[in-house]
């Protein structure tokens, strides 16, 4: 099981902050595509070039591999401070 989190504007656009995927293995990019196949309305938001990705709470590129037990997050550029 892979836990997938969404934050801020993206969370609002998708209408959810968390989904879980069973039996997934592949890259973050493949995971994103799988989510967009399940929810076609998400593609415009989730596949935006500005969206950042984290794997197990560290910023990574979308070619990173995901395995069961991992936590993946998608979010817009950060605006703290």
């Amino acid at each position, binding site marked *: 099981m892979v836990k997938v989190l969404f934050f801020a504007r993206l969370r609002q656009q998708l209408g959810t902050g968390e989904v879980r995927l069973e039996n997934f293995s592949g890259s973050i990019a493949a995971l994103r595509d799988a989510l967009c196949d399940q929810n076609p309305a998400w593609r415009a938001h989730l596949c935006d070039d500005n969206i950042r990705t984290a794997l197990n*709470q560290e910023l990574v590129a979308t070619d990173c591999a995901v395995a069961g037990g991992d936590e993946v*997050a998608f*979010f*817009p550029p950060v605006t703290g*401070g």
Partner: protein
Amino acid sequence: MSSFDRIIVCETPFDVAAEYAALQRGACADGACAMFVGSVRDFNAGNGVTQLALEHYPGMTEKSLAGIIADARARWGLGRVHVIHRVGAMQVNEEIVFVGVTSPHRQAAFAACQYIMDRLKTEAPFWKRETVHAEDGASEERWVDARASDTAELEKWA
């Protein structure tokens, strides 16, 4: 994480005077202390701001800040490093962020304080949502957009 580091993510206001005292008292080997405090501004992108809300990614936030502090320690000889960041709802003029650094000498303290803020602005998973006065007098909420100038600031540390 060094025992001289302190990372706090909190929903309640903090007291800068108390934070300075906590940072500096007993740091007897350090003659320098540099602090940065960021507050909620009353305008942004042409509109008056009345309230700000901050969302974050619990867990990753603390991990990200700890990594930034560790990188600062690798660059400069630092004593104590304290980072505090508010989340949740806050009002205009309230403090959002505090970065305090002690060091034997001022150059390291100044540089590390700026370095930590520059990295925090572009990496730590916080997102601002502001309530603004719209032109028709109504209030509206909007997510704050990231600034390219914040990313450009990082180049000086490359």
